[in-house]
């Protein structure tokens, strides 16, 4: 019962603030609403018994990405700037696209995802298992993607410095 109440509170927060984040007129408010959405998503991970993913979400998204966003907003916006909007006709077309997509996917989910999956086994994965899976080289273990991600991060650091440095 308690996790239901928590879930519906988090779901309301996510739905409200993700819509507000893309419709708000002030750019810094939009970033703040995005932060609320990311934090509530971390709450959903905790509700699904993934505490490690909860930590990663808080550290990487709410910690790293949001700081980057807020710095970028401070660097590129004058105070009191309004967000420019598209023409109304394009906004209507975009709204129709989004609502059509929601309707289509909701129909598919409601009629095709089987109703049997209403419960999950709430056992918590040991952090030891996560470490072995991340660092193993056997089947269903993820050392190679992990190293590829680290090379991607390195390329990303070098690329960002190259792009953003002063000439």
């Amino acid at each position, binding site marked *: 019962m308690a996790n239901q109440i928590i879930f519906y509170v988090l779901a309301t927060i996510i739905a409200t603030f993700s*819509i507000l984040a893309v419709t708000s007129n002030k*750019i810094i408010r939009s970033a703040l609403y995005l932060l609320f959405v990311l934090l509530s998503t971390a709450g959903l991970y905790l509700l699904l018994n993934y505490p490690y993913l909860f930590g990663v979400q808080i550290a990487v*998204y709410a910690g790293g990405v949001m700081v980057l966003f807020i*710095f970028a907003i401070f660097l590129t916006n004058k105070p009191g700037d309004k967000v420019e909007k598209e023409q109304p006709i394009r906004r209507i077309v975009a709204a129709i696209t989004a609502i059509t997509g*929601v309707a289509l*996917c909701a129909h598919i989910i409601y009629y095709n995802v089987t109703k049997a*999956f209403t419960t*999950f086994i709430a056992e918590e994965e040991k952090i030891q298992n996560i470490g072995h899976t991340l660092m193993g080289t056997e089947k269903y273990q993820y050392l190679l993607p992990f190293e590829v991600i680290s090379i991607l991060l390195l390329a990303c650091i070098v690329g*960002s410095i190259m792009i953003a440095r002063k000439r």
Partner: protein
Amino acid sequence: MGDFIANFGLGQVPITAYLGVSLIMFFSGVYGFLTRKSLLMILVAVELMLNAVDINFVVFNRFLFPGQFEGFFFALFTIAIAACETAVAIAIIINIYRNTSSVQVGDLDEMKE
């Protein structure tokens, strides 16, 4: 609606509820991507979409394949890639701002140098 009330009595959250949340999040990201004109706001919309996909991976892993880690690690790697993408995108945006003093997509109609 009957299913909903029955589930509420049982104290369980169905998989469709989780998928509905991520659905709303994803398509509000699509709407923002199509309507915003500032590059930073487009980036916010992209983050929303990536985050919705993460929720889907984790939910499918938890409900359909408990005891395995596939969705978990896909979500983990997606978070890492999203962080990379944000860093590079913000570097590009700051460079654009330095060259043209604007981050609106309407002003970006020429490539410098």
